[in-house]
């Protein structure tokens, strides 16, 4: 007897990644030999290592999760749905460090390896996680010849009005990060975008093996084994970043996480975080990251924005602000195009000219084997319900290590 386990409703190895948000899965019988009834009760559990990820299961879209479920599987080969979620606080470190097992009695009838992949605090990555992320990023840049060029071109002085200074700031950057993360995962699926908690010291980020150490001039130095030494943007080699705080022991002077979450309970109030802590974090350095037209030339930009997005995610969870239909979830004051809930977002919509920038670099939003949303041309509203809390189909396929599901 054999069963097939489909993670994220797919048999693809690229789909075998879950977060805290429940992933839709299926089980079906592929070899009925030995079956003595029309349905067979199959127990689904997970095996992991002490440092590996952990998952939990449930049968439907509601109810409690448990470490094991029993599913009656028809011998006809018809699929039976169930859900897997990472157990909060137990993310994976390596790809495939969790094994989902299906047993009939004590007989193993099917298994797949998967990963609890969530966005983590960059300061706490293992050396392996750090090196994989850095290698994928360097490959995406490929000395200024890689797909990263599109991401650099999406965030320039010319395109900045699409994404800054109005309500769409947070939704646009959520889509932007997701697009980049999916490209990184196409290179190495075990990678997720880490975040820089800019309100805390993060000495492990500013090392020669990770995002580099700045000299007094602001030129960033890398170790000889770090592929980011070949980082190149706008034709010029290297990164300029001159910190105005002690990167070994200190943090920039800006709103803490608690202060940010306390800005207000409506999105209209909360979005003032674009100034502080977001803007304040950018200008806690000199160099690329401190000007809007050059900020995306520094890899740190993406870690900084990942934290901005995490703060929004946390605020959404604290205040229940996932539903676009809820007035407090967004600022519905009529705004320039690209900043209103029903608007599609540039550049993924491919619209150019007029009030949009002249070109749309990068094409449509990258797809993911583990989530169907937001589709190739996301709208502003598609960024809000990132965990699929209001509508399961809206799940974007990422989670933060410290932001629970629902």
């Amino acid at each position, binding site marked *: 007897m054999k069963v097939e386990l489909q993670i994220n409703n797919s048999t693809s190895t690229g789909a075998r990644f879950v977060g805290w948000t429940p992933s839709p899965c299926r089980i079906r019988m592929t070899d009925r030999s030995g079956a003595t009834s029309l349905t067979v009760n199959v127990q689904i559990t997970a095996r992991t290592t002490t440092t590996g990820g952990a998952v939990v299961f449930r049968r439907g879209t509601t109810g409690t999760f448990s470490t094991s479920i029993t599913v009656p599987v028809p011998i006809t080969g018809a699929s039976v749905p169930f859900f897997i979620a990472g157990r909060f606080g137990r993310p994976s470190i390596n790809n495939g460090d969790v094994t989902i097992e299906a047993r009939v009695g004590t007989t193993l009838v099917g298994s797949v390896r998967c990963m609890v992949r969530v966005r983590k605090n960059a300061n706490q990555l293992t050396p392996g996680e750090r090196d994989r992320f850095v290698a994928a990023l360097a490959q995406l840049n490929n000395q200024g010849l890689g797909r990263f*060029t*599109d991401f650099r*071109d999406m965030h320039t*002085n*010319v395109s900045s009005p699409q994404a800054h200074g109005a309500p769409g700031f947070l939704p646009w950057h959520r889509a932007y990060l997701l697009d980049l993360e999916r490209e990184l995962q196409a290179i190495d699926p075990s990678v997720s975008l880490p975040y820089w908690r800019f309100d805390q010291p993060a000495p492990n980020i500013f090392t020669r093996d990770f995002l580099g150490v700045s000299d007094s001039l602001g030129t960033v130095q890398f170790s000889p084994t770090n592929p980011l030494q070949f980082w190149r943007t706008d034709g010029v080699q290297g990164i300029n970043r001159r910190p105005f705080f002690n990167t070994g022991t200190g943090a920039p002077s800006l709103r803490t996480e608690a202060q940010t979450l306390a800005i207000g309970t409506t999105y209209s109030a909360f979005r003032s975080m674009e100034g502080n802590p977001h803007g304040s974090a950018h200008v806690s350095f000199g160099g690329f990251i401190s000007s809007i037209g050059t900020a995306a030339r520094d890899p740190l930009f993406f870690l900084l924005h990942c934290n901005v997005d995490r703060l929004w995610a946390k605020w959404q969870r604290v205040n229940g602000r996932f539903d676009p239909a809820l007035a407090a979830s967004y600022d519905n004051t009529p705004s320039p195009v690209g900043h209103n809930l029903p608007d599609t977002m540039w550049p993924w919509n491919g619209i150019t000219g007029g*009030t949009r920038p*002249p070109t749309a670099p*990068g094409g449509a939003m990258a797809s993911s084997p583990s989530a169907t949303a937001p589709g190739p041309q996301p709208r502003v509203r598609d960024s809000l319900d990132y965990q699929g809390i209001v509508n399961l189909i809206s799940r974007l396929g990422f989670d933060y290590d410290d932001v629970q599901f629902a």
Partner: protein
Amino acid sequence: MTAMAAATAGATSEVSEDDFAALVDALAAGPERRGELTDLLREDHPVYDQRGAATVVRMRGWVLLALARAGLPDAALLYVLEELDAGIDAYLVAAAARALRSRPQPDAAFAPFLTRALGNIRYHDEPVSFDGYGEYAVGANGTSPVREVLATLEWLGPHAAGALPELEALRAQPRGLSRKRLEDLDRALETVRAGGPAGEPGGDCCALPDGLSSWARGFRRGGGPVESVVFEDQEGGTAGFQELFQGHPTVVVFFYTRCDNPLKCSLTVTKLARVQKLLAERGLDERVHTAAVTYDPAYDLPERLLRYGQARGLRLDAGHRMLRATSGFEALRRHFQLGVGFIESLVNRHRIEVFVLDAEGRIAGSFERLHWDEARVVERAAEVLEEKTDEPAPPARHKAASPMLGTLASLGVAFFPKCPVCWAAYLSLFGVAGLERIPYSPWLQPLLAAMMLINLASLWFRGRSTGRRSGFYLALAGALAILASRVVPGLEAAAMWGVGLTLVGSAVGVWSRLRRPVLHALR
């Protein structure tokens, strides 16, 4: 060298910025020298050679301001509109907006250019100084591109009625322009609305003022031989000019990957991708090729070209390539008479330029400076595909014939009937006019009248293909005069006028077709 000694033609990269400024000021003092000032706006003018982009901005800006003082001539209008259309440098956009106000008359066709300029520059507004050459605004002094554009819209007044919706939307934005700029906007709105709510028609977005064109549809002779040019494509394959551009029409654009104005190179290559799609929709994508050629061949290696093209949706295969000249770039530059300047191998300024080449690799259409219409380029390529056997295009190279001989030959052709039908037409003309001298010929009059109609039809079709119908209208007037001489008592003398007009009309009709080669030969 003093500034005055350096005539514009002789002004080179050796001229200091101060001398250049003095030269420009001197030229601006004499209205008859505005042509020389305009010549200084050419990107490939030697005076810009080996200057950095910021220096070129200072120099061109000063020329635009000189034109603003002297009065903007027709020949410089295209440069000004180009700056408003695709410029992102604050100083140049501001100078262009100011120069436009020196036109003798406002024109509704300017309004869309100004609103585009406003869109391009409003989030990058910054102070600029027009006080002296090379001066930058420091502190609160000076003007700004947004201020200048708004002032020019105010000058346009009711002629800018087409821009009202955009201006009103800008006014309605809760946190948009600064208080000072809002005052400028209010003044502009007041004068624009003065024509009434409807105002004058604003014209469509892409119309140009009368008499101005950025599109040369006809054949043009290349500026020099290109056989020596060797290209490398995005895959690293090499080929010569003839191999790439002969046997099929080709749409060619120029760009470079380090271009920092997305309204130029990035958009040009994106639009070339649209051209490819339009060609495919018409089933012409195999018969008409496309090529994007870099201005920066030393830096734009094949992998860089490939990446740039792919990111902009360009189809890349044997018929559609991105190219760099691995040798002979200078010849290529001369051949296409490219509007580009360099500092070492790096571009310091360039215009937008698109070419349609015929199956012999000759330039059969070109577009420069303003945003081009992809459909129009495809249309021209399709025409070239059909015309390849009967078009009297000039040979692209090895022109040896004497210019004067060519001219005389052209005139001879103009006045000499060119085909049996033309013979009949000529016979008709003289026959109808001189019918009285024939004793009796009741059958001859309708026959000759029919032949005259054939001549008119021939001129009509000729005019349609060249876009110039003046010959037809002259011949029509001639025919009507002859007709009048036959039917209206007392107007017999009109017959001779009719003959004259018909002859001139025929000559003009032929001349329109031949004028490009003749003008080239005369040059």
